[in-house]
């Protein structure tokens, strides 16, 4: 296989950095971005390096963060700003190479194998880092490696504003000494299991018996073993963004509740959010699922298969609330979720009209015809449905910006 050069670009404490770029007065101060400061789930989403120095960590409850850092500045997230910043970052990246795969709002992979033929990879990374800092006032770390896994591990090694090259021959000194929990792909539960096998570093994992790992963790065990040996043959796939299967939003209630009016409101809000995101992605759904988490954390999901595509918040709400009424056991509820599944892009969608109510569609026929004629004359791109409103932001929009990135490219 051809040797590749992969970059992993990872923004440093992204939300906090964006706020600081907007308001330079915040620079050098301990800053935390928190979901809902008033409510019990007010937790730290991200914090500046100054706050981290005091021990403030992501997902820490706010009261605890204040304890550690009394002069902490807390801000609500401004997703609109982060989205815009993200878009600009990926624009810079895609000016270097079209082979950019956004992974989330603040990180992405680049395959710079071709570009690096003429430029030294480290210099190229430096150029990217400088541009993002100069043009957007945002810090990032870049990992350079022969594959995605190592690039990701490398970008983690030096923060903020680091550039780290991780070569395969350096694994034993740079990667293997790291504690197992630092490995990308090893979560808390996997870490626990691996430690029971006396595997404490990535190196331990790399030397462990594959069969043992497979027995313990299944396919994932084998995969982790391969990765720990510095192998990863996944390509940087710019289209990976399209691989979405569902759109879901969930929300924790401020208080456990059995109040049906409150629940109805919640379902309305959730349905609207799901609908907004479907609209942004230009998809319709054939399957709606709800999630109910009770006060005792017992969680159920229930879905309904539909005969037709739905694309309105009202329809989503109707189905979601119906499902809820059928399956709710009357116990207090902590969290509710609505997910639209089986998504189809509008271009691939078709709707069998109904004899008894086709009129609604037929009324627009002359309009469709006119659109069709124009398209024939001037090509497919002349029309674009106006998004009725700019989608409202919510915490689970993380992946949706990716579509925007594709759209605007």
């Amino acid at each position, binding site marked *: 296989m051809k040797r590749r050069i992969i970059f992993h670009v990872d923004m440093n404490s992204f939300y906090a950095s964006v706020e600081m770029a907007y308001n330079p007065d915040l620079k050098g101060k301990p800053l935390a971005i928190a979901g809902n400061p008033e409510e019990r789930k007010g937790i730290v989403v991200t914090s500046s390096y100054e706050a981290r120095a005091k021990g403030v960590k992501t997902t820490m409850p706010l009261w605890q963060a204040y304890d550690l850092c009394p002069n902490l500045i807390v801000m609500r997230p401004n997703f609109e700003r982060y989205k815009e910043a993200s878009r600009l970052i990926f624009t810079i990246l895609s000016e270097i190479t079209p082979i950019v795969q956004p992974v989330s709002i603040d990180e992405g992979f680049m395959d710079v194998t071709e570009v690096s033929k003429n430029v030294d990879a480290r210099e190229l990374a430096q150029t990217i880092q400088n541009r993002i800092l100069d043009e957007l006032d945002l810090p990032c770390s870049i990992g350079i490696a022969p594959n995605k896994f190592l690039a990701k591990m490398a970008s983690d090694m030096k923060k903020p504003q680091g550039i780290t090259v991780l070569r395969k021959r350096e694994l034993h000194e740079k990667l293997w000494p790291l504690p197992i929990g630092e490995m990308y792909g090893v979560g808390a539960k996997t870490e626990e299991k691996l430690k029971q096998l006396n595997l404490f570093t990535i190196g331990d994992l790399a030397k462990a018996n594959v069969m043992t790992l497979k027995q313990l963790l299944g396919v994932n065990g084998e995969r982790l073993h391969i990765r720990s040996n510095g192998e990863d043959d996944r390509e940087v796939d710019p289209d990976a963004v399209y691989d979405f299967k569902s759109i879901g939003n969930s929300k924790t209630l401020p208080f456990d509740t059995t109040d049906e009016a409150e629940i109805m409101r919640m379902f309305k809000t959730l349905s609207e959010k799901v609908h907004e995101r479907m609209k942004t992605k230009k998809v319709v759904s054939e399957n709606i699922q709800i999630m109910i988490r009770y006060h005792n954390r017992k969680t159920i999901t229930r879905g309904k298969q539909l005969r037709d595509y739905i694309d309105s918040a009202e329809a989503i709400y109707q189905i979601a609330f119906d499902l809820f009424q059928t399956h709710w056991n009357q116990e207090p509820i902590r969290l509710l979720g609505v997910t639209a599944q089986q998504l189809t892009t509008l271009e691939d969608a078709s709707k*069998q*009209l109904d*004899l008894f109510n086709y009129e609604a569609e037929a009324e627009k*026929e002359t309009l469709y015809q006119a659109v069709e004629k124009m398209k024939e004359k001037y090509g497919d791109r002349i029309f674009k449905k106006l998004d009725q409103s700019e989608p409202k932001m919510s915490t689970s929009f993380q992946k949706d910006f990716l579509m925007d990135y594709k759209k605007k490219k």
Partner: protein
Amino acid sequence: MKIIIERDQLMQSIQNVMKAISPKTTIPILSGIKIEATQEEVKLTGSDSDITIESIIPKEEEGIVYIHDVNPGKVVVQAKFLPDIIRKLPESEVEISSDDDLNLTIRSGKAEFKLNGQDPEEYPQLPVLQTENHFDLQIDLLKTLIRQTNFAVSTSETRPILTGVNFKLENNNLELVATDSHRLASRKIEMDKQEDSISFNNIVIPGKSLTELNKILDDGQETVQVSVSDNQILFKTKYVYFLSRLLDGNYPDTSRLIPDQSKTEVKVNAKELIQTIDRASLLAKDNRNNIVKLVTQENDVLEITSNSPEIGTAEELLQTKSITGEELKISFNAKYMIDALRAIDAEEIKIQFTGAMRPFIIQPVEEEQHILQLITPVRTY
């Protein structure tokens, strides 16, 4: 009870009544066949409470003796094994007898089966339909009517009334209508003058009942007597009584659904159209609405295409007899079109369109039979 009966006749009757018996019945007695013997005939009954079928074996017909010996009585016997037992008996004569304890014995040649019977008194009494409200139909005509409409009933319970075929009899015209809300099939015939002219318009027979009825009735010129009550319908031939529950509810007024004007009219050979659409739909079977697209072109040519995003495209030009009116592009479910064309069964048909988002009408060009098929298009986005 004791009968000695011809095996083939018995087998035929068993197969008839088996069509009404559901293996999943919740009423235990209905998992059996009721056998009633009188001096004149043997009657078998099967039922799933929606459909009840009675099949009669006469003692003799046209000099041929079917029942050789009778000791009148009745019994209910488990239906599950009966067809196989009777089919595999060694001789052409079968002796069936039951004692007071409902033990059933089946003998043929040297083979003997003993089965546990059930109490015939537990078998639900069939409602006796008053037969004043009735009319006669030729059997093969009834079968044609069923074939031309029943395929269009809904298979979804969303609107239960649409799972049946609506029978209307007014001014000596009998009309059958079926629709699943995406397409509609309608057939009308003029009845012979009946002595008592009767009329009804909200009779809806479950599609499933008609499917079974169609299987039981043999093609032929004989007549079937149709009797209608508020909640049941009885089809009665000489040796078969077929009783079906009617669907509750009001059948929607479908006459208003049929467009009374058209903007584009196509006349075309039906067979050629079926074949073209069938070919085009080969690739469309994967997409959910089995969509083919039809576009009118110059010189009376139709372009028929389909595409499946990941598979490929199909395209074919079809020379029609004539295309008049506005240009048109329309997408529809290929299956609906093929079903409709097969039901019409005419050499040349005409299709009347009123726009890409409106239902279109398919009829034979020669209107010797009043048949109309309506299909609602598919909207593509």
